[in-house]
């Protein structure tokens, strides 16, 4: 076991955890990082610096609902004839730490329960005849690899600190890690250091109430939150708590600039939805996702008239800007300082990281006995699924008299009121959430002239409307310039898809291969979350001209046509063999057509539509059939 003090690098993450140890009301720490950065080791070592006896509960990813929030302990209940309540993982973490590795892979119902528990500081159990409240006031420590997908915003919002994403450790730090693992460090030193750290934290906890903060400082943090477009008011409190905790950790009684800067870095900046700008600009929505660094069209017509008129003015943003004028200069400088050093890198890193290949861990058939909607019960073994209590009881009921008589005959004395045999046991069958995930891949390259872009948007909107009615999920990927970009991860929010689509900029090359790869990754992530039916809707002329490598290596801009085709073919085959259905909506003008889009449809084994002819309804029909 590697101790907290032995971990090298990730200084910001360590500091974040120390702040949390000082003030648990910060709610938690989320650490996004790449594989092998030691984030899980660090998170587990967090227990080292907490007061002794603090619970540390690790949440398994495949946790079932009843294990998470608690319920009737069936075996004990059946054995004793009395209702035995089993506390869930959430309430076991009460007054301690709940640790989740791979937070982004947690399924959405588990995330909802965690959110609920955090907001109530308790778990309400209303299940299977139980009605109880279990206290569950815990710190949540979560780590995840952004290439596995993002964590739901609703959850992040309830967690105080989000450590800025750090892609890789430098090699010196790694070397030292190896040294530690090899056991070259002195155990005694480690223990001493830990003891000191614990002492420091204890002292800081006592200091916490003595720290004061000026009005100007509070205002400054709030101002920063507003100009970064951070949603909600909850975050203000977290930022203040973080600043105070840091002051306490340094044994100060007043919050200073360093504390403010750290609070901005750990609490506000990671939630930024836009870059702070001195001049308000209604087009800011487009900045939510960073534009590709390279704005120049590759080999196509420049597209100056890119969809300016479609971007709606965003009222909340405009409101926010009004307040900007009269803030103290000092605070603004501080903020720009914190923001400029952190923000651009941070956002770009995340979006680049998600281009890396995602692992897909299929959980397979077991899903049917564990998750989804309870449909009916069927005979089965206790171990193989969730027991359907009532059907079990019902099937046992008629035999009670004869079984008791039999027991008496055999001379067995039993106090159980009910004798349940193995054959009585019924387990629940679940049905997976139905619904399809539509992944829209919209070609926003320079070759999509304005008119066709409008038509494409029209087609997408009809499909979105349909998806809304059927409660399907939608995801939106655009591709232009060097690589594709996930504008909207799978979600049921048609509103958001619409908004993203409205402000979609156009221009640049056509990274078709990158689009296929991104779509495939999104599909695979969705599969791990239990969505089985997936459909690609590609809106493109099919004329890919940017190789896959361009996304990673700025020196690659072109590739021979054969190579491009090979990439696309390989990807298309994999996608098809993964059981993903596709529709290609061709946006090519007739006289230019060289038949690329039909070829793409063929490679994907999907259906083909020619947009200028196709009616939106036809496409919808095809998508749904």
């Amino acid at each position, binding site marked *: 076991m590697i101790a907290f003090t032995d971990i090298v690098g990730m200084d910001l993450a360590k500091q974040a955890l120390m702040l949390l140890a000082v003030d648990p009301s910060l709610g938690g720490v989320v650490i996004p990082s790449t594989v092998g950065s030691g984030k899980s080791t660090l998170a587990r070592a967090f227990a080292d610096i907490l007061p002794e006896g603090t619970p540390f509960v690790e949440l398994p990813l495949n946790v079932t609902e009843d294990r998470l*929030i608690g319920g*009737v302990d069936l075996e004990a*209940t*059946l054995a004793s*004839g*009395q*209702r035995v309540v089993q506390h869930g993982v959430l309430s076991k973490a009460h007054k301690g730490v709940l640790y989740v590795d791979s937070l982004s892979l947690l399924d959405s*119902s588990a995330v*909802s*329960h965690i959110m*609920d528990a955090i*907001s109530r500081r308790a778990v*309400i*159990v*209303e*299940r299977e*005849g*139980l*009605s*109880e*409240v279990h206290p569950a006031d815990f710190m949540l420590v979560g780590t995840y690899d952004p290439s596995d997908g993002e964590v739901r*915003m*609703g959850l992040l*919002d*309830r967690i105080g600190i989000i450590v800025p994403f750090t892609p890789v450790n430098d090699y010196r730090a790694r070397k030292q890690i190896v040294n530690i693992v090899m056991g070259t460090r002195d155990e005694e030193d480690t223990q001493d250091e830990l003891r000191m750290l614990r002492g420091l934290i204890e002292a800081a906890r006592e200091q916490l109430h003595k720290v004061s903060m000026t009005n100007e400082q*509070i*205002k400054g943090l*709030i*101002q920063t939150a*507003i100009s970064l477009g*951070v*949603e*909600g*008011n909850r975050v*203000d*409190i977290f930022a*203040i708590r973080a600043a105070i905790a840091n002051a306490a950790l340094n044994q100060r009684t007043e919050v200073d600039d360093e504390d403010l800067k750290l609070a901005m870095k750990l609490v506000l900046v990671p939630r930024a939805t836009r870059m702070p700008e001195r001049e308000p600009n209604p087009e800011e929505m487009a900045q939510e996702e960073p534009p590709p660094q390279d704005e120049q069209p590759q080999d196509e017509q420049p597209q100056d008239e890119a969809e300016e008129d479609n971007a709606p003015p965003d*009222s*909340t943003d405009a*409101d926010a800007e009004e*307040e900007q004028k009269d803030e103290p200069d000092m605070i603004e400088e501080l903020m720009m300082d914190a923001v400029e050093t952190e923000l651009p890198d941070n956002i770009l890193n995340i979006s680049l990281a998600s281009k890396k290949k995602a692992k897909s861990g299929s959980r397979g058939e077991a899903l049917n006995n564990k998750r989804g*909607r309870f449909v009916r019960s069927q005979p089965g073994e206790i171990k193989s699924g969730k027991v359907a*209590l*009532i059907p079990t*009881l*019902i099937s046992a*009921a008629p035999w009670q008299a004869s079984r008791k008589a039999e027991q008496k005959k055999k001379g067995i004395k039993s106090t159980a*009121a009910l004798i349940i045999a193995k054959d009585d046991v019924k387990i629940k069958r679940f049905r997976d959430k139905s619904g399809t995930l539509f992944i829209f891949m919209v070609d926003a390259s320079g070759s999509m002239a304005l008119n066709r872009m409008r038509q494409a948007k029209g087609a997408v*909107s009809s499909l*979105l*409307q349909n998806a*809304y009615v059927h*409660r399907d999920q939608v995801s939106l990927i655009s591709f232009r310039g060097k690589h594709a970009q996930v504008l909207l991860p799978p*979600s*049921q*929010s*048609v*509103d*958001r*898809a619409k908004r993203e689509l409205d402000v979609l900029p156009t221009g640049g090359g056509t990274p078709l291969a990158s689009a296929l790869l991104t779509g495939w990754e999104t599909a695979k992530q969705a599969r791990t979350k239990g969505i089985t039916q997936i459909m690609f809707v590609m809106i493109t002329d099919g004329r890919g001209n940017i190789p896959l490598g361009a996304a990673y290596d700025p020196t690659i801009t072109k590739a021979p046509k054969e190579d491009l085709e090979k990439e696309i073919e390989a990807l298309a085959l994999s996608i098809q063999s993964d059981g993903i259905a596709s529709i290609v909506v061709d946006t090519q003008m007739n006289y230019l057509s060289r038949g690329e889009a039909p070829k793409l449809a063929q490679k994907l084994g999907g259906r083909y539509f020619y947009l200028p002819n196709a009616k939106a309804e036809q496409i919808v029909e095809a998508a749904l059939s």
Partner: protein
Amino acid sequence: MTQTAKAAKKTTSAKASATKEAKAKAPAEEKVVTEVRKPAAKKKSALAFPFTSIVGQEEMKLSLILNIIDPRIGGVLVMGHRGTGKSTTVRALAEVLPFIPRVKGDIYNRTVEQYIEMEASGKGAPAIKPEDVKTELIPVPVVDLPLGATEDRVCGTIDIEKALTSGVKAFEPGLLAQSNRGFLYIDEVNLLDDHLVDVLLDVAASGKNVVEREGISIRHPARFVLVGSGNPEEGELRPQLLDRFGLHARIITINDVAKRVQIVKLRREYDEDPEAFMKKVTCDQQKLQKKIVAAQQLLPQVTMDDKVLTDIARLCMNLGIDGHRGELTITRTAHAYAAWEGDTQVTMKHVREIAGLCLRHRLRKDPLETVDAGEKIDRELAKVLGEAEAAA
């Protein structure tokens, strides 16, 4: 044995036998074993941030208050940004709610009339005289429906414990029973499982909960004010459920620095010492409660001209709202709002204030509509008012 118990017992097959059922959680308040289990005394009402100290978000606060004044408005859906105090506000509601009378210890919170009607309707049941029924005053119940609730706990089901210990089939009421004549609150309502949504829609439409499962057959009143909250970015609400809500309040991040500073200060003061904080605001809380009760009492006297009704109808027609729920909700809400303002006559001034709340979610949903629903309503409202003025 209570009458309720008898009603439940009609459905049971086995005979009740007093057993070692005196469990720690279920207070056995009567000597005879009742068949309807009382819910465990569980809600140690944890201190909630006080309603009167919530800064801003007037739209949400008003819609909740209007629903207390007249529960027939049909509840409120609060949708908006994360971290803007949605659930805090709803949970704070409990403290300012007025009291209602119910039959003493009745798990369904029934009035004497409801009680007699239900208990005495069975064949062979003895008539009950109203004066024989004891009553008590309870605060309007606020029931929290957690996302992970199972259907059996929502609707009520067989009492498993009893089934296990004594082999008796007894009914254990669920959350719907507890929420009768009160508020049923669902946080993250847009994430609620579809099958629970179905149940809620059913019950909300009929005002009755009918349980026909696992050999139990019972029906009881379940008329509640449905309050839901959520963030639209996490998922959409099913249209049928959306339609059920009387009002739709929208809530966005407050971007006024001074207000936010105030929010932070109040919150920190509260966190520092919740009890002292509550003491400080007791007076405000009571004032609010009194004002609500006064509005409730004024409500029956509030009247509305036919002309106003015509204008409301025209507004709904111009907006292309299907069905009549729009007009109905506006009318009720405007009455409640007038009462809240201390007026006895509903005017278009009242209507203007609440029209957005009543209609926003009833406009035909077009995911690609760029015009905000609120603006559209305002525009039509201005038109209707303009016409009204021109005619006068």
